[in-house]
Every structure is written in structure tokens, then in C-alpha cells.
């Protein structure tokens, strides 16, 4: 049976204290051995204590570095997330501004700026693929009378109805832009002269049948149209100019008709 350390210690100490062994030859050696053992034990305990201390410092240090690192990481992630949000906001704003810069505010149609951009693109495509490109200028007949009779607010409403009618009368890939006050530019890509005339005649019929009733009064409107075909390599402004001449000719011919340049 193994003796408990404390009772073993007690036994050694009582043996050393015992008077009958005082002159025993082994007593001195035992006393020395005992003292040495005590000293070693004490040193061992001190070393473990110091080592544990260092260990604890290292662990605490690593913990705090880890904690600070995680804290910084969270902050950084937050800053990045918010910053991305602001960037997204700017992009949305940019898209809105771009749309606004290209849209006629009243009618929602493309404005002159977008029309010019599309004209340039379509002219280039036409030159590349040798496809016909038709351009028309449409002007509402006697629009001034609407303004004079019903006021500008009603005039604007009529313009909006007109814009819708034109847009609905065209194909998806055709462009309709508000060119001026009551003047619209229509671009018919990949459309030969005869087909363009057919599309625009149909559009004129739409316009005549447009159910306009400003302030409860029935109003019948017509439009004059000048058509020009784009000539390969020419400046698009020359095409516009010929369409404009054709439009003037249509007006002179008594309005409500199509004239091709």
C-alpha cells in the first residue's frame, strides 16, 4: 500500500525529531536528503509558477490581438458595406440623370439629344450593312389653334396623346423623338422607302382617328409628314434637312399628307 505524501512527510519529520535516533549514522544523511528534497520541490513549484505566468500572458496577448483584429475587421466590413451603399446610390442617381437627359419631360419620348445619338448609330449601321434607313419629320397641323382655343395646358395634353399615338403606331425598334414644339422625328431602321410610306400613312390614319375631347369638345387633328431616305455616307443632318424640305412641301400641298424627298 502506497503511503499518502502528507503522512509520509509526517513520518520522516517525526523520525528526524525522535531522540532515540539522534546518534543513528543514517539520521544525518536522511536530514540532508530531506532538506535537499524540500528545496528541489520548492524550486520546481516556483518554476512552474513562472512558466504558467508567461503562458497566461501569451494567451491573454493572443486573445486581445484576436479580439482587436476581429473588431477592426467588423469596422472595416461595416465601412465597406456603407461605402458600397453610397456607390450604389450614385449609380442609381447617374442612371436617373441619364434617363432624364435623354427624355422629353412632357411626352416621355426621346428628346433631341437621344435622337441625335440614335441617328448617328443607325447611320453607321446602315453604312455597314447596306440596309435602308428612313427618316420622317411629322408636324401636327394647326396645333397653334388648339393652344389658342383651349389654352396651353390642354395643348400639352393633346401633345401627350399625340406622342402616345405615334409611339403605338410604330414598331418596337423604330425611334420616335420630340423634335420641337409639335414636331416629331421618326426613324425607321431597315425600312425601304415604300414600306416607310405605308407605315406613315397608317400612322396618319391613327392620328385622324385619335379620340381627342379637350374640355368636352370633339377635336379632330391631322399631321403632315416629310420623308427622306438616308443616302450611304452622307451626313445625317443632310437627311434631316431633306425631310424638313419634304415636310414644308406637305404643308404647302394642303397638309394631312406625306411627301417623300
Amino acid at each position: 500500500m502506497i503511503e499518502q505524501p502528507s503522512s509520509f512527510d509526517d513520518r520522516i519529520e517525526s523520525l528526524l525529531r525522535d531522540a532515540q535516533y539522534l546518534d543513528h549514522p543514517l539520521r544525518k544523511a536522511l536530514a540532508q536528503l530531506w532538506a535537499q528534497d524540500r528545496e528541489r520541490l520548492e524550486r520546481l513549484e516556483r518554476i512552474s509558477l513562472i512558466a504558467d505566468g508567461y503562458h497566461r500572458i501569451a494567451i491573454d496577448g493572443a486573445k486581445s490581438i484576436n479580439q482587436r483584429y476581429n473588431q477592426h475587421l467588423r469596422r472595416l466590413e461595416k465601412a465597406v458595406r456603407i461605402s458600397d451603399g453610397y456607390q450604389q446610390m450614385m449609380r442609381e442617381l447617374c442612371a436617373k440623370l441619364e434617363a432624364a437627359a435623354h427624355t422629353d419631360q412632357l411626352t416621355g419620348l426621346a428628346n433631341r439629344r437621344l435622337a441625335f445619338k440614335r441617328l448617328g448609330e443607325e447611320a453607321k449601321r446602315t453604312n455597314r450593312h447596306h440596309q435602308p434607313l428612313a427618316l420622317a419629320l411629322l408636324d401636327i397641323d394647326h396645333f397653334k389653334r388648339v393652344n389658342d382655343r383651349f389654352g396651353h395646358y390642354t395643348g400639352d395634353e393633346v401633345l401627350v396623346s399625340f406622342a402616345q399615338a405615334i409611339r403605338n403606331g410604330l414598331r418596337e425598334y423604330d425611334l420616335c423623338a420630340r423634335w420641337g414644339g409639335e414636331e416629331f422625328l421618326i426613324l425607321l431602321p431597315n425600312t425601304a422607302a415604300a414600306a416607310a410610306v405605308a407605315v406613315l400613312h397608317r400612322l396618319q390614319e391613327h392620328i385622324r382617328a385619335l379620340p381627342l375631347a379637350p374640355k368636352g369638345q370633339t377635336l379632330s387633328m391631322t399631321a403632315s409628314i416629310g420623308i427622306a431616305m438616308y443616302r450611304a455616307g452622307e451626313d445625317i443632318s443632310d437627311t434631316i434637312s431633306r425631310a424638313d424640305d419634304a415636310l414644308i412641301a406637305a404643308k404647302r400641298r394642303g397638309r394631312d399628307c406625306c411627301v417623300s424627298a
Partner: protein
Amino acid sequence: MTDLIIPGTQSVPDVLGDWQAGILAMNGDSYPENAFSLFDQIIKWVEKYLAADSRALSLELRLIYLNTSSVRAMMDIFDLLETAAAGGRRVAVNWYFDSANERVGELAAEFKEDYTFPFHILPVD
């Protein structure tokens, strides 16, 4: 003691630190060329104010766009407020935004999370 006045430009917000009133107001966009020099003054003013006495501090913000450096700097300022609040100081943020631009309010809310002091996000018509 000393007021902080930074006149705004297109890329720098209007900043007014009113020492007497205990108000730091910032209005406009913030994407300065040198964000450090701009926000260093602001952060120093806040630190000085918080160290000087025990009066309340209120941030009145009408900030719209912030670039990344400005986002970071604002977080630094809010951290100062959080520390002060933990020490019992009365601090608050009132962030006003145009109700037509909800995004600004949403981003202010992103700033707000993690902070425990009063942080109000207020739509303005």
C-alpha cells in the same frame, strides 16, 4: 470656447461646431481630396469638446453623399460619442434626410447599428 467653421464646397460639407450650443452640424456632400486633413480638424474639435466639460453634444447631420474615407471618419466620430456615452455623457446624433431620397436614410441606419447612444434618423419633406 472655440467654434469650428469649415465653409463647404462641392466636395466638402459645411461644418459648424458651435461650442456654446454644444452642436456640431455637417451639411452637404463629402468626398474631399484630402479626407484626413478635413476630418482631423473635426475629430480634434469633438475630442476637445468632450474633454473640456460635461455638457451635452449633439450632431446635426444633413450629409448626402460620403466617399469611403468620409464613411470611416464618421465612424471614428461616432465611436468617440459611444465612448463618451459609456462614461455617462449626454450625446446624440440627429441625421436628417430628404424623404425623396430614402437611400440616404437607409445608409444612416447602417451607421447607427452597434451604437447605443440616441441616434435619430429623421426624414424631411
